[in-house]
Structure formats: C-alpha cells, structure tokens
C-alpha cells in the first residue's frame, strides 16, 4: 500500500474518526460506554451515570425542573436573536422593537417566543418549587439545594422584571417607575423615624438601579446590562450548582420503601457481579453517602438513554407549548413611554400583580418587607423541618393531603375575607386620616394576612406536634395568598386601582 492510498483511506475515515474522538469512548451501546458517555462529557456529567427507577416515574417530578430549564434555554436562544436588532436607548429602543415586530424576518415570532418562554419559566419555576416542597425533597441532604432553588426563583423574577423595561413603552416605563420607587421605599420608615438625612438605604438603592433620579437612558442601559449579562451569568452559575447538587446529594428524593413499591423489573440487574470491597479511592476523602461503598447502585438504569430521552421529551413539550402560545398570542407593545401620563391602571406583568396589590396598602411592607419575610420563611423550611417521615412522597408527613386541603380552604378564605373587608370598608387611614405613617406601614392588610398565616402554621406545629405539618400549612397558605392577590390584581382592579367586578364597568375616559 503506497502513501497516497493510505492518505485517501485516512481522508475517507476522517469523519468517522472525528466522531469517535469527540465521543471519546465510542457509541453508548454497552453499560460501560453508556457510563463513559455521561461522565466523559463536561455537560452531561452534571447528571449521575445511573438513575434510580423511582426518579423516572413521571409522578415523581412531573418534569417541572427540566421544563423550567428548557424554557430558560428557549428564552436564551430567542433573547440572543433579539439582540441582533434591539438598541438600548430611549425611543430608539421602542422603534427597534417595532422594527422587530413589523420588519425583521420572523422577528415578531421570535419576540413572542421570548415573551412566552419567560412566562412559562416563571410558571414552571414556581410549580417546581411547589413540587419539591410537597414531596419534602428539601430535607437532608438537600437543604442547600433548596436555597439555590430560591436563588433561581429570585433571579428568574429579576430577569422578567428587567426585561419588562426594555421595549420602552408606556407599560414598561410605569412598571419600572413603580419598581424603582419600591426600591426607594425604605424611606417610608426612615422618613417616619426622621433618619433619612443620615441613613438612606432606599435612596441609594434607587440611585444604583436607575443611575439617575428619574427613569431615563441611564436606567435603560442598566436594566439592559442586568437583563442580558449580569442576571444570566448568575442564573447559569446557580443552575449549574443546582443540577450538580442533585447528583451529589444522591439523586432525587424517594421514599424509604421505593424499591419494594417499584417491584422487580427486567431492566434492572446487579451492576457488580461481586460485591466490591472497595469502590473508589475517592471514598477516603469524600464523606457521607456518596459514593456508595460496599454495595452496587441497585434498582438503577443507565442515564443514557433512559433519563436523557425523558428529559428530551419534556424539552420538546416545553418548546411546543412556547411555540403554540407564540403563534396564538402576540407580545404586547403599548404607546411610546410618556413621563407625564401614567397608564391607568398601570399594571405590572401578571406574576407581580399580587405584589402590586400589596404595595397598594403600603410601599415598604408590600414591596420589600413581606416578600423578604416570605423568602426568609421559605429558606428556613429545610432547617426547621428535620423530620424523616414522608420524604419523597406527595404530601408526605403528618396529616398529608387532608391537612393540605384544610390549609387550602383556610388560606383562600382568610385572603378573600381580608381583601373583601378592605375593599368594602377601607383601612385605618380611611377611618382615622391622621394616623401616623409608621402605623399604616406596620399594620395593614398584607401584614395582617401574613400574621394570620404564621399563627395558623404555629398552631399546626402544636396541634400535630410536627414542624412538617406547620410547613405544609404555611406553604399552602402562601400559595393561596399569592393566587388570590394575583387574581384580584389582574381581573378586578381598574382605573385608580379601584375594585371593579368587570372591565366593562370601568368609567369611560
């Protein structure tokens, strides 16, 4: 064989060899190559090599975590595409969104996808959090991953909020004005204490957010920076840790008797023919339950293809939902921002309307105080509930589903009663107009509702002698409060934030 012949053969074989070297260990056809396919790949190795069968039941997770990750991916791709044409400068921004909508090929579709994937992301992140809570998946050793998840929730909401300003239309301008003034609202307290001249965290927050004292070009470029650079970087970092910790914390949570409940399967066989005396050298320095020493990963199946195909299916479904919504509903664009005439009513995106309902009672407690209390409360749940019973079970724990049903009733009823009393009879300032501001700030329908929920939860702890029961009640109540306030803010608030049964009752301009 001469050199020229060999050259031709190598040329012919080059594509196959490129693929071989990319995969490092060949096609994933045997148990061994399926393992190396996962741990030999920098992206895939965030997953474990083998997945427990319990994790693959669709009722375990409902696929919500992967759906939110998929929505994130869709939002990133569509967002990067929008950056080809978007110009972050007042008026130019508005015109460029109009260009994207009316002129750019597929621009309108891509913008709709971006908006809907952001909405899907918010919904799935909240639903995923509820799933993790109701299956008690935050428990040891997964406490810290619950905190990372909360960071992801806050980052997701931050991305939505910063994206809201970018079109520079009326909706955007007034939502950001309100948002920036919520950042300034600690002044409500410092003013009442007469301390604003020496200590003004509110003013500083607004200044840092807007880069000026009004919403203008500086604010737009800052929100753009947050939206396309800083928050996505935070999101990517937190997501990587979140996924990695699932693997390091021993996969998804499952009931102690998961193996018996699953029963035998022809897909499962002992991974090690002999029980290994010594699994990994690393076992000397890794503490805790990973890697398992002395027994094989029983009742597991290779992640490639079982887990990855399931993830791909959920991703396709998410993509389908985003595309269908994007085809059916256009992303809104109002008139060019006008700093002299607010929208009436000026409404934030739907997932912030519960907050807007709260800030209509008091800016500081509604916009900063109560959200901070809720976040701290949620973050403490894994560190206060140290019980073991019911982990990995839907509504596991004392009382279970009946307790959640009762909490749903109490949470909905108390939110509806407080809201309807306020709508019908007003609040302190309407009865005693000279009430000091500090009293209005501290005692208002929002704080009252928070106190009712907290008291109910403590009562549950005492009644069931279980902190899990208290957590179940509290989380359910807060979900109820969120839903009630959001629905009222979305459908029943009209001009001047007055209650109307239907938009057809709104006064004509």
């Amino acid at each position, binding site marked *: 064989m001469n050199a020229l012949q060999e050259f031709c053969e190598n040329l012919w074989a080059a594509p196959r060899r490129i693929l071989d070297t990319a995969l490092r260990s060949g096609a994933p056809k045997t148990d061994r190559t399926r393992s190396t396919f996962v741990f030999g790949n920098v992206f895939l190795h965030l997953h474990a090599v083998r997945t427990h069968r319990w994790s693959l039941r669709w009722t375990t997770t409902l696929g919500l975590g992967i759906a939110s990750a998929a929505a994130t991916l869709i939002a990133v791709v569509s967002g990067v595409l929008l950056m080809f044409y978007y110009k972050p400068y007042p008026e130019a921004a508005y015109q460029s969104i109009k260009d994207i909508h009316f002129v750019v090929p597929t621009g309108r579709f891509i913008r709709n996808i971006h908006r809907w994937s952001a909405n899907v992301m918010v919904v799935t992140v909240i639903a995923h959090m509820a799933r993790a809570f109701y299956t008690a998946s935050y428990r040891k050793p997964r406490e810290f991953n619950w905190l990372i998840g909360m960071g992801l929730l806050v980052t997701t909401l931050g991305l939505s909020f910063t994206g809201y300003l970018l079109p520079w239309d009326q909706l955007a301008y*007034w939502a950001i*004005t*309100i948002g*920036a*003034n*919520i950042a300034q*609202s600690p*002044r*409500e307290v410092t*003013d*009442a204490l007469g301390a604003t001249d020496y200590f003004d965290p509110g003013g*500083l927050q607004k*200044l*840092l957010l807007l*880069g*000026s*004292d*009004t919403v*203008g*070009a*500086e604010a737009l470029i*800052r929100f753009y920076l947050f939206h396309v650079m800083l928050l996505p970087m935070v999101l990517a970092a937190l997501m990587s840790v979140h996924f990695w910790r699932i693997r390091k914390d021993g996969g998804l949570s499952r009931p102690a008797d998961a193996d018996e409940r699953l029963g035998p399967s022809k897909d499962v066989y002992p991974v090690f023919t002999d029980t290994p005396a010594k699994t990994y050298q690393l076992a*000397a*320095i890794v503490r805790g339950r990973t890697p398992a020493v002395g027994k094989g990963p029983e009742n597991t199946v290779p992640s490639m293809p079982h887990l990855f195909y399931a993830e791909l299916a959920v991703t396709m479904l998410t993509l389908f939902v985003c595309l269908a919504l994007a085809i059916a509903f256009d992303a809104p664009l109002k008139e060019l921002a006008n*700093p*002299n*005439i*607010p*929208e*009436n*009513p*000026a409404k934030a995106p739907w997932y912030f309307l519960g907050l*807007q309902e709260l*800030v*209509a*009672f*008091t*800016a500081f407690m*509604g916009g900063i105080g109560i959200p901070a209390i809720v976040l701290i409360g949620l973050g403490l749940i894994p560190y206060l509930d140290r019980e073991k019973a019911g982990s990995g079970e839907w509504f596991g724990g004392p009382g279970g589903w009946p307790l959640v049903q009762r909490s749903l009733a109490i949470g909905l009823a108390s939110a509806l009663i407080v809201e309807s009393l306020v709508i019908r009879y*007003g609040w302190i*300032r*309407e009865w005693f*107009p000279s009430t000091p*501001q500090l009293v*209005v*700030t501290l005692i208002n329908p929002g704080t009252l509702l928070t106190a009712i929920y907290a008291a109910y939860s403590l009562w549950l702890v005492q009644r069931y002698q279980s902190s899990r029961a208290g957590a179940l009640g509290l989380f359910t109540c807060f979900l109820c409060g969120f839903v009630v306030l959001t629905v009222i803010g979305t459908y029943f608030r009209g*001009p*001047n*934030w*007055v209650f109307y049964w239907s938009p057809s009752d709104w006064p004509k301009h």
Partner: protein
Amino acid sequence: MNSETKHSRLEPELMPRRDVLGMASLWAAGSAFMFALFGIARLPKAAVLASPSKKFRVTLPETLPASGAFVPPGRNVSISRDSEGVHAVSLVCTHLGCIVNTSSDGFECPCHGSRFDRNGAVTRGPAPQPLPWLKVTGSGNEVVVDEGATVPSGTKV
C-alpha cells in the same frame, strides 16, 4: 516524638509553624481583593446625575380661575393662583412615583388609588407623605418653578 506519626496527609496538623507565611500572603491577597471590591462598588453610584434641568420658567395664563390649577405642558407640576399668591404642587405621587391627576377636590393617583386634597395632604390610600410644594420665584404671571427644591406647605408668593 510520636506526634509526627499521629498526622497523615489526609488529617494534617491544624496549623503547621511553616504555614504562617503562607496564611499571611493569603490574607494579603484577600484584603487586596476586598480593596478592589470597594472600587467596583463605587463605580455604579453616579457622581453627576444625568437628568434634565429641574428649573423652568412659565407664563401663567391670564384666565387662570381663582381655585383652578395650571399644569405646564411636559411638567409634572400643578400651579395655582389665589388672592395670597402663586404656589406650585408636585404631581409626582409620594407613594411610587406615578403622576397624579387633578380632580374636583384635589388630586388622585391612577396607580394605587392615593388621594390628596387641594393642598397635597393625603386623604386616603398608601401615600406616606403629602405632595411637596415646590419653590416658586418671580411675580405676576412670569414665575420660575424649581422641581428640585421644596418649600413648606402654605408658602405662596
């Protein structure tokens, strides 16, 4: 000395003598990064605010009614004139910065329903402060209003 046999590479001595220099350089590096952080934190707080001039000159219309308010185009200020003189009330809601509308008995905010009387005092809703009165200079129909300077309620020129 059997103390040397107690420690292994996996469970070393708590702080070997020779590591002091190493720790010192670690702390030095740490404080250098902290110092850099001050610089990073200082940058986003602007020293000069890029906002348009807050002072403006306005000619009041002759036919301004005794109790009526005049809102110069493009400005969020309500100017009134009565027998005691001219005064200007800011139209920026003290709650969350929306622009209030003038109503028959004062001002009302479209965003969260705060109401104010004719002098800017809060009558209902979430607003924590009354609408500020702004500094007015000049006389007759030619006045200069400074949106950046407030005066006590009731000051008329």
